[in-house]
């Protein structure tokens, strides 16, 4: 079949820095074409070029065999090319419906056709099994739901070419399944889909062909058939990969964090649990279970009642600084809105949380610079230019920067919400090793993750949440996907009784 969209020798530079070195591949109707590569390999950049958001520095695009240059994204959209961004492209103050139809509102005469738009919004969201009111403002939605809106917006526009940049990074298994079904449906209707994800099992599940990028260069394009996950990973990273998860640490007996009867009004009821020194504690649950809210309540980011004790001492409620001073920090799941100052330099982001360590009165710029150097090497942040702003980092590298920022506070207890969102498999392994090393040093870690394998692979104990309360706890051999899911959905006691 002939290609709808083709890239030939596409290069792209930002200022003096070249990030794509001649990428070529093609998309044919009715296929899912996966683009994989490490963080910063140039996937998003490639996709933005195809979607008309960026122009190539060199090389050409062919649409239906004819060379094109999209002046802007609107032209690409008119040609039937749509893109789901890795970073949210939603206006937070606007409602779901307003975002879904932004720039292509339906009208009746002069006026907007609210009813039609709301109905269509509902239909679209329902197709994605996402039950939110189209009149909700985006800023009031959870991160996964925002992603579903983003997806709904793209699939609602009958695209010939749909470009999806890590659509599942923030989704749990259930929503991922829904999305992959939708992709199958679109594919059967003849759409071409360009897809990227760091979850290689998804790639293996849906891709027809796979293109591998490394450091902005095209490595290979081949059929997905027979391309194992392990082989994909090695093609991306360019080296041998060992076991993904390190050995689990058991943890000592002394309790470092004790949460008792914590209630976050409207979100979490009466949650109690403990965390021991040197332990990795997992938190699992479905989207909307309230894990994020619980953690935010613990560190003082949300008004909460109940007690939080660190090393037996209660910490001041409602103060993030007090929590941090007690050695307790939280790494947010929402890196764009709550994690990083996208318009600020890497250094300013890195040291913001632990700024007092760089001088109470005068910031020691030299020390900050060293901290950046260290963070770049410790967390393998792919930085092309140390003076760039955080927003110019690739998504995965932003996540690494966020991790580095949190760790710079040298916490005793760290709560990581979705630690490896958008991180490539090679780096994931580094982060897992890092978490294990933290635990081995006697620090304690709470991992909140929607990726069950991650929770299972890392944690020696798992707390399962469902609908705003703690639905059960598992440890050792009992930690299985099945056991977690049953508890999360409220049917956990059955297996619990038989065990």
């Amino acid at each position: 079949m002939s290609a709808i969209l083709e890239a030939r020798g596409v290069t792209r530079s930002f200022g003096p820095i070249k990030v794509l070195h001649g990428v070529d591949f093609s998309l044919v109707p009715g296929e899912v074409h996966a683009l994989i590569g490490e963080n910063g390999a140039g996937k998003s950049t490639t996709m933005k070029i195809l979607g008309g958001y960026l122009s190539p520095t060199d090389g050409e695009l062919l649409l239906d065999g004819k060379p094109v240059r999209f002046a802007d994204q609107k032209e690409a959209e008119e040609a039937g090319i749509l893109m789901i961004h890795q970073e949210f492209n939603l206006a937070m103050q606007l409602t779901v419906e307003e975002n879904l139809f932004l720039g292509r509102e339906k009208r009746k005469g002069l006026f907007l056709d609210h009813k039609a738009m709301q109905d269509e919004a509902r239909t679209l969201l329902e197709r994605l099994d996402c039950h939110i009111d189209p009149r909700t403002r985006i800023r009031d939605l959870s991160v996964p739901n925002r992603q579903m809106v983003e997806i709904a917006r793209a699939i609602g526009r009958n695209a010939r070419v749909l470009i999806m940049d890590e659509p599942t990074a923030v989704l749990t298994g259930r929503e991922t399944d829904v999305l992959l079904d939708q992709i199958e449906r679109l594919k059967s209707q003849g759409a071409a889909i360009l897809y990227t994800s760091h979850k290689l099992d998804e790639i293996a599940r849906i891709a027809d062909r796979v293109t591998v990028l490394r450091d902005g260069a095209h490595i290979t394009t081949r059929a997905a058939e027979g391309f194992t996950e392990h082989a994909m990973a090695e093609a991306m990273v360019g080296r041998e990969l060992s076991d993904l998860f390190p050995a689990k640490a058991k943890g000592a007996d002394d309790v470092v964090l004790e949460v008792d009867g914590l209630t976050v009004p409207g979100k979490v009821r009466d949650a109690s649990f403990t965390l021991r020194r040197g332990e990795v504690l997992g938190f699992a649950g479905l989207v909307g279970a309230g894990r994020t809210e619980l953690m935010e309540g613990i560190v003082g980011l949300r008004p909460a009642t109940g007690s939080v004790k660190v090393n037996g001492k209660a910490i001041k409620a409602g103060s993030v600084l007090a929590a941090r001073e007690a050695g307790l920090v939280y790494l947010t799941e929402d890196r764009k809105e709550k994690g990083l100052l996208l318009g600020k330099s890497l250094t300013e982001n890195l040291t913001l949380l632990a700024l007092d360590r760089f001088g109470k009165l005068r910031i020691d710029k030299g020390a900050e610079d060293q901290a950046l150097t260290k963070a770049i090497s410790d967390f393998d942040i792919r930085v092309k230019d140390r003076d760039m702003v955080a927003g110019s980092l690739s998504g995965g590298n932003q996540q690494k920067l966020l991790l580095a920022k949190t760790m710079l506070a040298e916490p005793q207890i760290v709560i990581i919400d979705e630690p490896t969102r958008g991180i490539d498999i090679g780096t994931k392994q580094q982060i897992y090793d890092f978490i294990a090393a933290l635990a081995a040093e006697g620090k304690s870690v709470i991992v909140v993750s929607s990726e069950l394998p991650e929770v299972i692979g890392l944690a020696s104990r798992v707390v399962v949440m469902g609908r705003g309360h703690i639905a059960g706890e598992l440890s050792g051999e009992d930690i299985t996907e099945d056991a977690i899911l049953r508890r999360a959905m409220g049917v956990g006691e059955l297996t619990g009784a038989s065990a």
Partner: protein
Amino acid sequence: MPLHALGPVLALVALIILGASLNSNFLSYGNVTNVLARSAFIGIIAVGMTFVITAGGIDLSVGSMAAFVAGVMILAMNAMIPVLGVGVPLIVAGMGVALLAGIAAGLINGLLIAKVGIEAFIVTLGSMGIYRSLTTWLADGGTLSLNFEARGFYRPVYYDGILGIAWPIIVFALVAILGELAMRKTPFGRHCAALGANEQVAKYSAVKVDRVRMATYVLLGMLVGLATIMYVPRLGSASGSTGVLWELEAIAAVIIGGTVLKGGFGRVWGTVVGVLILSLIDNILNLASIVSPYLNGAIQGVIVILAVVLQREGKSAD
């Protein structure tokens, strides 16, 4: 509607009750007409300002723009009398001049802001000075006056009306209703909000960002022209001190009404309530004469803050 959205309405109701209890004439037809009619200038401008602010902009030049437009309108009308005579054609021509001058002034602001990309605050601060001083210059430091006869003919546009409702009130009401519709029911309103909320997103959603931004300033300019059309028949003159501080009053009305100063969310009906609150404060201070006039400003300030406190009540909850 969430309760705290009603904040400005509560403040308005409280003021009305206060006024009625202070003076039995407060709710009389005459007084109500006076207050509404004189709110019309700022009100019409504030409706336009709501769009500008919702789209993430600001316009400090409206007061002096109004003075300038009024000056130009008066000069044009005086010049046209020999040709058109005093009559309906003269008035219509004057109105046309005012609208065009307003649109042109808005267009210049809009071009500098949207196309040249200069900070709106600076552009409109600059044009505020420019229009103010051009007006003084046109008037040679004094006052520009409409020909006396023409003024007599034009006067009813402010003082008369239909069914006992004065024209300025009718025009203000129409502008408010159309504004509310435009904000809530048209793509333009949505695009303004999107632009104010996140310009990048709007751009990526194929919203013509520059054009929308420019349109908000042009719209505001046009409404300044319209307000002037209502203003000139009232006082029949313009000088360097016409419309001083209108910009502050218009912006205050917009913010009191619940529109977000940094953009992304606008509420035309709120603006109307805000304008009425501000007018009523003045009116009540005149009714009461309880305090030293030196303290009027202080009382105004306190009431403005209180009106917004009511509205923010719900804030700590989330």
